[in-house]
């Protein structure tokens, strides 16, 4: 196990209490809104702040355990950190930046990544002469030069512009698949988590609210935050014989037979809007009013009063055709097979 930790600490008004593990070769994304405590967890694992209670073990060695009075300073933890804006030392060349860690530790530099990351031609450049993507690769090579037992990436793509982000994300993904130790990525961008991570841990208000394999978390969001960043709507309720009595009012018919407390996930694209009562096979049909209309990329997001309150995504042409505006009375429909249900 590259990392096994139970971290309890308080920052300002947020009390963090989270258990986190990361196996060898595994990539774990720590996903959460700003202020959830993600960066604090990262700083604690790196040794840049002490925890109040719990333990942090890296490669099976305890590095911070207040109960046993253990605290290993960052320089002895063998944790590689890629900081959000890379923090390359401006007074050193790329070569000196990469050599800094091994020199401090008195070890031979791990040079294999210099070529693998395509840095051979950049070694004599100063950080100010590098592009964002190059700076990121140099920072990665610098972190890896010390042969770390755990790699921490703090918002690794946030400093890049949209056009380079795609390419760098793909590079990072292929790198992480080769890396033999564990990697923890802190991000607030669900795309980073979905593309890079084997497992997602959702952190909200200092607590872990959901965790699981990436595919499962993406398919079955259990928290409003996660649903929002994934662009889907969550409906909580109690299911009986394929009918969900929603907590927010109204009923939804589903094709899944689960009884008990459930979370239903509905993609906005699955909801159709109609001027009159629709004739069709959709089993969920209800009359409602529009509360809000928002342009959202290529489609328009229409929030419906309910019950239950849901959001639909339709084309701008449909908005014009149906005369959609806040306050407009309208019919909505969704197929039972488009209401995916998971027991809560």
């Amino acid at each position, binding site marked *: 196990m590259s990392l096994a930790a139970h971290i309890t600490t308080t920052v300002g008004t947020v009390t963090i209490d989270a258990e986190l593990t990361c196996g060898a070769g595994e990539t774990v994304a720590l996903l959460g809104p700003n202020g959830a405590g993600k960066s604090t967890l990262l700083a604690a694992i790196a040794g840049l702040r002490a925890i109040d209670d719990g333990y942090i073990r890296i490669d099976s060695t305890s590095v911070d355990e207040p109960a046993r009075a253990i605290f290993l300073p960052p320089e002895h933890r063998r944790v590689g950190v890629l900081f959000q804006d890379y*923090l390359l030392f401006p007074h050193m060349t790329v070569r000196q930046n990469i050599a800094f860690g091994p020199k401090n530790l008195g070890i031979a530099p791990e040079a294999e990544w210099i070529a693998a990351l395509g840095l051979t031609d950049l070694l004599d450049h100063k950080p100010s002469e590098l592009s964002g993507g190059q700076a990121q690769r140099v920072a990665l090579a610098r972190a890896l030069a*010390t042969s770390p037992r755990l790699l921490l990436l703090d918002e690794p793509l946030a400093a890049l512009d949209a056009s380079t982000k795609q390419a760098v994300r793909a590079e990072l993904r292929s790198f992480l698949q080769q890396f033999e130790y564990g990697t923890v990525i802190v991000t607030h961008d669900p795309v980073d988590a979905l593309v890079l991570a084997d497992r997602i841990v959702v952190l909200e208000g200092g607590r872990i609210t959901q965790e699981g394999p990436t595919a499962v978390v993406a398919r079955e969001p259990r928290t409003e935050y996660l649903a929002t960043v994934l662009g889907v709507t969550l409906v909580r309720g109690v299911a009986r014989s394929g009918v969900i009595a929603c907590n927010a009012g109204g009923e939804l018919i589903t094709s899944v037979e689960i009884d008990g407390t459930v979370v239903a996930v509905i993609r906005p694209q699955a909801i159709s809007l109609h001027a009159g009562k629709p004739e069709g096979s959709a089993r969920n049909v209800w009359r409602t009013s529009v509360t809000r209309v928002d342009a959202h990329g290529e489609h328009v997001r229409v929030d419906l009063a309910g019950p239950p309150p849901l959001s639909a995504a339709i084309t701008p042409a449909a908005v014009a055709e149906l005369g959609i505006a806040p306050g407009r009375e309208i019919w909505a429909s969704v197929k039972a097979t488009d209401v995916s249900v998971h027991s809560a």
Partner: protein
Amino acid sequence: MRASQRERTRTRTRTRHHTRAEAQAPSLVMVLAFVALAFLLIPLAGLLQETPWSELPGLLASPTAVEALRLSLVTSILAAAVATILGVPLAWVLARREFRGQRLVRGVVLLPLVLPPVVGGVALLTAFGRRGLLGQYLYDWFGIQLPFSTAGVVMAEAFVAMPFLVLTVEGALRGIDPRFEMAARTLGASPRTVFFRITMPMISASLIAGIVLAWARALGEFGATITFAGNFPGVTQTLPLAVYSALEVSRDEALALSLVLLAVSLTVLISLRGRFLGSRS
């Protein structure tokens, strides 16, 4: 509608006001600016005009002048070194730590800047004089007597010069992102390595500016030096003190020595041009 009208009126008023201010500037501001410049330049012109250029080599070669110049260079460099070795750690603590009484400490650091140097000299006497707070023990136990010695000159100069170093370095330390230091820690650097290999190189330009400023202040020091160390040729008589003594004997010698100080000051100013005349690199 009404808001936009008001906005337009305000814009018009501002424009008219602006135009009138521009028209007024030459008559008053420009004249005063010119007077200020003349006030600074005329004494320098006087100095240059009165300087006995033909006798200059002879005057500067006199034993008093050579001794004073040598002593000034030695003591001011030592004072700058003392101010740096003690001032950089103090600046680091002020910039990187938070503690009770921090504002008081910063006030104490700034004190020599506003204190009349002669008061600084008196204060040093009461502390390090033969009957002073610490001085009595230095003298009784070790036979060390700081006042009226070359070491006393270095102390007096360091006392007035240190704030320049501390202020410059503290400002520079606050200007760099402390996360660079954190990044260095995760790369296996001890706090000591971080200080010497990351922090100091990152503020090198400001550090050099601070050292040069402190050195220049030490070179020009007069009041604290003459009070604490006296005015003994060859031992404590630095260039500024020599100028003062020479004035009573030979005006030409005073002028020649003044010219040396002026040349040194100008050289420092020009070498620091990039930092203090706005063109930051």
